[in-house]
């Protein structure tokens, strides 16, 4: 029988057993944290630049405006890497389920918001919030599924 060796880069967690992650999940959590940090820094950086009168023009304007998308792409790539690195098929199954819940959650939220916007004239939903909301739905569902299957 092949012995499972602990990942040196990911020390064992002291959290409850159901919260303990596989080495692949720990790497995913680390990459996700980096991507989210980059997302916040880039988003806030853009706001800072906008408020301080930095108004680039032409192609530069487009490139600067989509900088936070790099962090979003990094998040999606880290999810894909997790799915390819995770050797435990049940854990992969839970992750895929949580992604579906995340997609479903954000579609329901934006649709409901759209109707409320149309008929009750509530404030506009800024589409830049779509990805953070998706990530919240997905993460909460993932942890819930892990807890239910502890």
């Amino acid at each position, binding site marked *: *029988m*092949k012995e*499972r060796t602990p990942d040196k880069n990911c020390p064992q967690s002291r959290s409850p*057993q*159901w919260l303990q992650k*596989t080495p692949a999940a720990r790497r995913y959590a680390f990459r996700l944290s980096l991507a989210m940090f980059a997302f916040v820094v880039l988003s806030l950086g853009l706001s800072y630049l906008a408020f301080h009168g930095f108004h680039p023009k032409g192609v530069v304007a487009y490139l600067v405006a989509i900088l936070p998308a790099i962090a979003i792409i990094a998040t999606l790539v880290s999810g894909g890497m997790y799915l390819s690195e995770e*050797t*435990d*098929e*049940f*854990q992969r*199954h839970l992750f895929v389920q949580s992604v579906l819940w995340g997609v479903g959650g954000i579609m329901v939220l934006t649709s409901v918001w759209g109707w409320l916007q149309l008929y009750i004239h509530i404030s506009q939903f800024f589409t830049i919030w779509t990805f953070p909301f998706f990530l919240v739905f997905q993460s909460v569902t993932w942890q819930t599924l*892990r807890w239910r*299957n*502890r």
Partner: protein
Amino acid sequence: MKNRLRVLRAEREWSQADLADRLEVSRQSVNAIETGKYDPSLPLAFRIARLFESSIEAIFTDEM
């Protein structure tokens, strides 16, 4: 799908964690398979069958 995983494991006095280590999966996976919440893939079913020196059909049945 029903399975005899819990019985086979109990016969050998293995905990879920013991079986999970032998199969190189998480304990949660063993629990989900035992309780019928999750049906393993064919490769994992073969690994389980080999571990218990049995056939897949002897461990898993498609009775509801």
